[in-house]
């Protein structure tokens, strides 16, 4: 039943004008950003936007807007089911509440892959246009770049999990976007400040808040030790403190844990509440 629910989710999404507008807007923003990089590289001998060197910028440069647009799209697709009362109609039609939720959870994975493809496709096209000789070596991402892609997918699962939890709890499109955005843009910062002010263990715990951890996954320095080394040297030369990255042994369980917690909480909320 989860498979059927996912097929229905994709059918609904590709015909939804609001979904197409959101994806189109993301394409436009990414196109403008990557296009600008390509244009600068064309105009200036010092700048470069060619493969394979452009992969880090392609994968992580526009990751934040992709996480935001992707989450907003997910809220549009989930929360509207409650405003239109189609979530209850789906159950009346024979889909269990659990299968309905599985369809939405699979949708998060589909959207994560879609937005990654969108970044790779748009950025890759501009970078390819700026590459003198396109060889398979130039096109194929290396281990660090693959790690950055994995980081993006995991970060999307975290952002998406939070968006799913807010959608099934708030059950209204505008209000859900508002609550989600408030937490991502402001709420977590306030909590972090509050915990920091308490000091001790509370201040330590502030480090592990979800959005901060998810954002670390889309920092290229987290994935490429050589790039981190170069950034550290530049910072030392400028007299700045070295850039901080997470230990993978900590970052991975923290981000996977938060994402799993959001999905689990969303499932419990959806299952317990009447439609």
């Amino acid at each position, binding site marked *: *039943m989860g498979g*059927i*629910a996912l*097929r*229905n989710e994709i*059918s*609904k999404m590709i*015909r*939804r*004008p609001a979904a197409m507008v959101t994806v189109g807007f993301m394409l436009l923003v990414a196109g403008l950003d990557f296009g600008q990089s390509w244009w600068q590289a064309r105009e200036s001998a010092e700048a470069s936007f060619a493969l394979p060197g452009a992969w880090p910028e392609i994968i992580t440069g526009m990751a934040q807007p992709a996480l935001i647009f992707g989450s907003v799209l997910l809220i549009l697709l989930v929360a509207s089911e409650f405003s*239109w*009362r*189609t979530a*209850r*109609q*789906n*159950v*009346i*039609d*024979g*889909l*269990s*509440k659990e299968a309905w939720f599985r369809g939405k959870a699979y949708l998060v994975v589909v959207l994560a892959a879609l937005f990654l493809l969108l970044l790779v496709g748009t950025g890759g096209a501009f970078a390819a246009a700026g590459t003198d000789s396109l060889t398979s070596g130039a096109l194929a991402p290396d281990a660090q770049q693959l790690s950055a892609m994995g980081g993006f997918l995991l970060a999307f699962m975290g952002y998406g999990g939070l968006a799913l939890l807010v959608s099934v709890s708030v059950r209204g499109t505008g209000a859900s976007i508002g609550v989600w955005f408030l937490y991502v843009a402001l709420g977590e910062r306030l909590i972090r400040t509050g915990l920091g002010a308490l000091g001790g263990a509370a201040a330590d715990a502030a480090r592990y808040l979800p959005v901060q951890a998810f954002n670390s996954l889309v920092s290229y320095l987290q994935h490429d030790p050589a790039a981190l080394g170069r950034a550290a040297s530049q910072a030392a030369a400028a007299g700045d403190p070295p850039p901080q990255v997470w230990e993978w042994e900590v970052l991975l369980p923290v981000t996977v844990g938060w994402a799993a917690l959001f999905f689990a909480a969303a499932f419990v909320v959806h299952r*317990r509440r*009447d*439609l």
Partner: protein
Amino acid sequence: MAVIETRDLTKRYGDTLAVDDLSIRVEEGQVFGFLGPNGSGKTTTIGMLLGILTPTSGTFSLLGGEGRRELVEARQRVGATLEQPNFYPYLTGRQNLRLVARVKGVGEEAVARSLERVGLAARAGDRFKEYSLGMKQRLALAGTLLSDPELLILDEPTNGLDPEGMREIRRLVRRLGEDGTTIFLSSHLLWEVERVCTHVAILREGRVVLESAVDELTAGAARVAVSAPDAEALEAGIDAHPAARVVDREGALLIAELEDEDPAALNRHLAERGVHVSRLEPRKKSLEDVFHETTGSSEEPGMEEVA
């Protein structure tokens, strides 16, 4: 076999008891009318049967299934509408039905047949948001018929339809009932239930106050409509009869209930008292009479919202 059986089913919203220890049994092949005034718990009961509301206490079975997994499987074999039709506004009628068809495991031909059956084939390519309320009702009905369900649960199926549309739906429900489909029909239209249903349950304040075959309910004591030039003498004459009593008025007509089911005896009794009857007409007890007697309501039952 009981197609629907509820045992002490209860739904409470805070201090409000929407459904109170409700126990009903719908047998295979019945066309079961579910009647009650506003807020009596009809829609809440259906909501629990369909899995969108969780009962506070009590149990129920649907098509023999009772556990969570069995109920999910049983609901696949149920076609249901609840309150107003809910579909995706930006999709066409056909696209909406395709989504339902996938869930029910049926193909494109079932979608086409269903649209044809409710007279919506010509407008199937229009978007749902462009449909009139009547067309939305038809689309909802088409959704319920997609998989030839064993049980049809219909909540106000003629709501929003024009008289011809209402007639079509009644014909369809009657035909499906004759074909052996069990139908559970919630309606605020008493005459609709009386025309279509074989059995009925009447709810009041979340409790079943009456459950019976429609024929048995309307059989009861015989009624007659009587008029005479001297209305006061007529009423006094009827009151003086040991097996008759005035139960209602329709203009100049007095409606009397007879325990002995013998209108001729009443006529004789009145003539002996000098009351000359100008009209005496046997009346069958209607479901509306039963409803008002049972619920004490003077109005027809209306629709309710799920809380």
